């Protein structure tokens, strides 16, 4: 994956002004945006998905320009073909698990095609959701909700998967299990991903590169491979980054 992003966004909530200045580029397949809450990671993820329009800058994935303020390009979210897993999953509460997974495949009027229907069943099977496929999301456990959200995001065969704090809604033992599961899924689907987290363990588990945010700015970017080659320990580097990001 070739990924390039350089955006600026001024926000105002109440009397507080917030300036997001986000820029990085990478060719890694697994990128983690890391930093404390309110440091601009999620806003960056939203901008990649087109849910937030930057004031200026550009976003490019594999040569496709998703956003370019100078050229006046702003591809609508629906055409960006990104899979997005929201922090609280945002599963449609009025739809069953099966309908949630098939949501992006179903036309506005009419039914799923036979082929799409098979894909939905495959995903439901793959994510071990067969027993709960006809239940509404409110009846699911945290882990099942997350698997549904993943299956739903992958159903439309996105070219990139965006994950916003995917494990924050889970308790600790489940979190460890779902991490392993997500690694397996990413490997199976061979899909590049960008993950937002404030958990340094997740940086270690997933990052090929990590971008560190503080107060809306990128304060560092590190490649796991480069760190390993230079003989430094990744854990140690991340620990330093945590201290820096949180101003300890």
């Amino acid at each position: 994956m070739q990924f390039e992003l350089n955006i600026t966004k001024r926000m105002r909530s109440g009397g507080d002004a917030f300036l997001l200045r986000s820029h990085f580029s990478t060719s890694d397949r697994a990128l983690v945006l890391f930093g404390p809450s309110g440091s601009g990671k999620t806003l960056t993820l939203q901008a990649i998905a087109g849910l937030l329009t930057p004031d200026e800058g550009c976003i490019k994935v594999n040569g496709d320009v998703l956003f370019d303020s100078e050229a006046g390009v702003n591809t609508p979210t629906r055409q960006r073909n990104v899979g997005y897993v929201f922090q609280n999953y945002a599963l449609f509460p009025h739809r069953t698990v099966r309908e949630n997974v098939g949501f992006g495949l179903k036309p506005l009027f009419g039914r799923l095609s036979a082929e799409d229907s098979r894909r939905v069943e495959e995903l439901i099977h793959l994510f071990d959701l067969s027993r709960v496929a006809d239940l509404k999301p409110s009846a699911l456990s945290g882990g099942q909700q997350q698997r549904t959200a993943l299956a739903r995001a992958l159903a439309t065969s996105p070219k990139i998967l965006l994950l916003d704090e995917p494990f924050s809604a889970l308790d600790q033992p489940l979190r460890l299990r779902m991490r392993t599961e997500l690694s397996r899924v990413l490997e199976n689907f061979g899909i590049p991903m960008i993950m937002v987290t404030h958990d340094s363990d997740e940086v270690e588990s997933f990052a090929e590169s990590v971008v560190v945010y503080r107060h809306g700015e990128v304060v560092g970017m590190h490649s796991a491979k480069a760190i390993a080659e230079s003989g430094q320990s990744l854990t140690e580097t991340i620990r330093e980054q945590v201290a820096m990001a949180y101003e300890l």
Partner: protein
Amino acid sequence: MSSIWSTLTGFHFIDPLMLTLKVAGLATLAAFVLGVGCAYLLSRRNFPFRDVLDAVFTLPLVMPPTVLGYYLIVLIGRRGVFGQWLQEAFGISLMFTWQGAVIAATVVAFPLVFKSARAALESVGPQFEDAARTLGQGELAVFLRVSLPLAFRGVLAGAMLAFARAMGEFGATLMVAGNLPGRTQTLSLAVYSAVQAGDDTLANILVLIISIVCVAILVATSRLLQPKF
């Protein structure tokens, strides 16, 4: 007792009842489409004078129906801005017709749909709509598959209140459509005429019908508004 029976079999209330259901039903439908549309626009788009527009849309709720009726005459009356054009271009006049009554009832019922729909749509979490967009859905699909279903109970409750309001509409209807028995005389107008004519039996039956329908609607509305998810 015999007078009740003769009234019941004499169809004095059948005509106004059927007319009322027709007028209130169509007015509710029109108010539903317009009200939900305007509510979606105002809850999702930010533009100048949005608050002013919201106030204008809510105005029929607080203005005296006779004033609304007067505005409608200015608009669709024979010499009205729109009415004159209709008359000249198509030879149609809406004054003193049941269609005119539908328009009057629509205007009066509109704010009830608009207000409930706006509140219901604003309570739908934006993340659900965003999720649908990332799943390749266009704005119409987002509205029909996500926003409207999630807001539907609130919207439906508003529509039921609108129906009740349209059923009871008197002032604006009287000014625009008059009180022509068999043509524009709805239940509430028939009650007025019955009382004026001293026909207490008919008035009692009409009042009872209106009361039962309104209680039924209010009970159903409060049930709809109980939280589900």
